[in-house]
């Protein structure tokens, strides 16, 4: 889609600050992760912030995976 308009982008696509409210950075098993709280018991991994490529192969923390609060 290409827009040709004098309207500022923020007016056309207002961003929803609430959508990012639940995001936070945590350390899980020593690995820094950006997570989002999905419900009362779980975090969902959004981004792995580690520099160790092996951490990206860990299927417990791959983006999209759920981490229970009880495992923290």
């Amino acid at each position, binding site marked *: 889609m290409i827009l040709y308009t004098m309207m500022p982008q923020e007016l056309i696509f207002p961003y929803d600050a609430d959508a*990012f409210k639940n995001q936070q950075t945590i350390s899980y098993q020593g690995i*820094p992760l950006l997570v989002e709280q999905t419900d009362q018991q779980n975090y969902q991994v959004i981004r792995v912030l*580690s*520099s160790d*490529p*092996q951490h990206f192969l860990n299927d417990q923390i791959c983006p*999209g995976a759920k981490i229970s609060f009880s495992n923290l």
Partner: protein
Amino acid sequence: MNNNFIRNDAENPGGAEPQKEEKSASPLIEKIQQLGQTNVPQLSADSKIHCLTIVGQIEGHMALPPQNKTTKYEHIIPQLVAIEQNPNIEGLLIILNTVGGDVEAGLAISEMLATLSKPTVSIVLGGGHSIGVPIAVSCTYSFIAETATMTIHPIRLTGLVIGVPATFEYLDKMQERVVSFVTKHSKIPEETFKELMFAKGNLTRDIGTNVIGEEAVKYGLIDEVGGLGHAMKKLNELIELKKDENKGLIQ
């Protein structure tokens, strides 16, 4: 194959194997639902090469609105310190795909990379624009993908301008820092870099130049055109070279 199987069995005695099979089926489906992909094979736990991805905007003094994809200065710097200190890490690979960002944060990352005692190799994939340029050249050896681009343009300031001459002078000094860093850490001569920076007609209604893959190598900004395989090979070579150097010192 056979050997591995026996070893696995020995680790899980008491017929734990079939149970594991059953269990692994459901997380696999879950994984496909989550990401549309299955997991990749596991390697040994320790990796001697670490990898830093610098993507999106480089975030420094100002926290950007959350919908921006950012690389945060305060995430990268401690990781670099940890990489420098960890004796198991022998090399660092920097993956760049950035649109630029905070000048001082970018220069800080570049200086940290340039002074890291371990071999570093950078790959520019997609784009390494503006402040991504000093980061790319700060590594021991730099690669650019054939289709990747780097935009070189003058520094601008978004914010309050108090006095025009003072602001202009400040911007000029800031730009000088970037130019001197890039010319010091790459093979590009200062005149060429400034020429590219102030060139007219390359970018629509703006000054600057967009260099693509091969061009960046031609100007001496980047060392070589290549991808992941080339970068890893080079990094391993540099690691071996450093090991040999250290051996020489002991003797």
